[in-house]
């Protein structure tokens, strides 16, 4: 599987080159949010706001009222927690085209509870006018700016940084209103998002070898949420639905799926995997994904609970699953 280094840093420069109305604001996390290449390329369009997020959100609202497109770069916790009121009243209420890029989603950082955004999707979903997007791989990091810019209103982007795997064909960019169908099956429906999709792909591959077939949907458009494909997949799944997300099970993907199923009257069983209404702590990503049940092994465990039998899958089996880089010439059938 291909791993892309700092895809956003490069893409932001490429994408903004022909868009003079695009500005970048940063709150003392410029390199940490891969905005440093933009800062060097377009110093006149980069504004250092210092460690002052509440003010930054108001400034972004003012710039947007004047016709600019501010792309606010900071960690997800610092978009959604401290300046929540400013995001709601200075950006979301007036429906301004501010693009909020939140880095370090969920448990991807060892920085501990203050740096782990386990609640950002819930907080942004609840705001009227806000569109909520989440990147799951390098292809989505490279196409999310187009999706965001097509929205006439505020957008929250849950962003990835650093070494980002490529799970999806670059010829298939992120698209509004669409979930990616990564496999089709009749036993379970798996709905995953963000970094958890790579984990889910490993689990779904192994489950198939154990005789369990899964429909696997990857969700990158968290809001507005396309309910129909999820309901369809759930209706097809004999055992039930499992959601897997790098976020609290309250208010994120699991909640969106639960709402969709309930409103459609689909009586499917639902297991929501994610952070189980608790806070985490600082540790390595692998340790935290295991501890909080956000990895491939946890997904296998959930399917075992649904089907009532052990499938004999170990963590080593899952780690050994090879995910191929998609694109021309590669075998996407084997995902």
């Amino acid at each position, binding site marked *: 599987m291909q791993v892309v280094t700092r895809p956003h840093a490069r893409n932001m420069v490429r994408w903004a080159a022909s868009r003079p109305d695009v500005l970048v604001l940063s709150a003392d996390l410029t390199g940490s949010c891969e905005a440093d290449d933009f800062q060097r390329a377009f110093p006149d369009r980069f504004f*250092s706001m210092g460690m002052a997020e509440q*003010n930054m959100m108001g400034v972004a609202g003012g710039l947007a009222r004047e016709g600019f497109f501010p792309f606010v770069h900071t960690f997800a*916790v610092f978009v959604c927690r401290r300046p929540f009121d400013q995001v709601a009243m200075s950006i979301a209420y007036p429906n301004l085209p501010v693009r909020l890029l939140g880095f370090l989603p969920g448990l991807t950082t060892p920085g501990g509870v*203050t740096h782990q955004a386990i609640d950002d999707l819930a907080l942004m979903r609840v705001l009227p006018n806000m569109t909520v997007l989440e990147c799951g791989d390098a292809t989505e990091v490279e196409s999310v700016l187009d999706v965001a810019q097509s929205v006439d209103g505020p957008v929250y982007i849950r962003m990835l940084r650093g070494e980002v795997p490529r799970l999806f064909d670059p010829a298939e960019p992120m698209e509004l209103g669409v979930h990616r169908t990564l496999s089709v099956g009749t036993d379970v429906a798996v709905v995953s998002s963000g970094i958890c999709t790579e984990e889910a792909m490993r689990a779904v591959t192994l489950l198939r070898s154990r005789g369990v077939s899964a429909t696997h949907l990857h969700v990158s458009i968290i809001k507005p949420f396309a309910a129909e494909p999820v309901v369809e997949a759930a209706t097809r799944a004999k055992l039930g639905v499992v959601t897997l997300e790098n976020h609290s099970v309250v208010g994120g993907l699991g909640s969106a799926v639960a709402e969709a199923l309930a409103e459609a009257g689909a009586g499917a069983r639902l297991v929501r995997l994610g952070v189980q209404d608790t806070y985490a*702590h600082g*540790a390595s990503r692998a340790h935290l994904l295991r501890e909080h049940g956000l990895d491939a092994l946890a997904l296998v465990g959930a399917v075992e609970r649904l089907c009532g039998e052990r499938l004999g899958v170990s963590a080593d089996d899952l780690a050994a699953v090879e995910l191929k880089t998609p694109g021309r010439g590669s075998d996407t059938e084997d995902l």
Partner: protein
Amino acid sequence: MPAAMSNPDDPGRPEWADRARRVAHSVRRGVLAHTLRNDGGYLSQACSSAEVLATLYTRVMRLGPSEGPAEPRHFPGAPGPGNPAAFTGAAYNGPRAPDLDRFVFSPVHYALVLYSVLIEVGRLGRDALDHFNRDGSTLELIGAEHSPGHEVTAGSLGQALSQACGIALARRLRREPGRVWVFMSDGELQEGQTWEAVSMASHYRLDSLGVLVDANGQQCDGAMRGVMTVEPIADRLRAFGAEAREVDGHDVAAIAGAAEAPHPDRPLVVVCRTDPCRGIDLLRERGGRKLHYVRFTSLEERERYEAALAAWSEDPCRS
């Protein structure tokens, strides 16, 4: 408070000051060693703040003996109704008592500096850093309230001072004479909340509150004057009603003097002007490169830091 014994070698200099300087010197060495071991770390923060924290722990703060285990405990789970095992790291700052002081540590990415100070003053076991940044350990890279020496969760910077104001107000309501000391970084002065806290502390005349700011002029994006200036710090603090004193943040006697002189009816802020390369001159060669989190860019650079560690003098006067 330690007795002001005179030093047989230099009768003008008290023994506590020698101890504070030795602690600071050892802290820099320990943080350098761990930065090499982890192939990166918050090294410049040790350089700037070692004397400030050493002075707090060896002289200024009235603390009882540590009640924390020498071998640090593992993460007990997040606080909550289902977890009576949750604890804070305040036990390392001694028992709570009306006449004893409290310590609130704000820039928790300095955690390794604080762990090192606790070790050097005998409040944490010599081998505790073996747990640093390990999965399941309380000695996290960025400290939280379960980490030794920490009492509040402050990694979302600019939140600790307000909590310290609440603690100081509560202690006044209980008529406790003990003080509340806060250690902060200058970058936190960019957060609006910091100024809301200073306003409140002044309005309520919280003169039991003493804040020491490590004014090293650096933040994540680089030099603060380029990112978002907060100068003139002392004048701004005075305009908000605080008693602001500026000192050389590497002069332990000056730090202690500023912290200990009375400031009736006003909260105290000691602006400690510090050097983020102090004691490790190699850092100066980074030129304009950022100092916030030091990563070695070549094997050659790393080897030079290793040589500096190997040549570390035991005597702070020769550093």
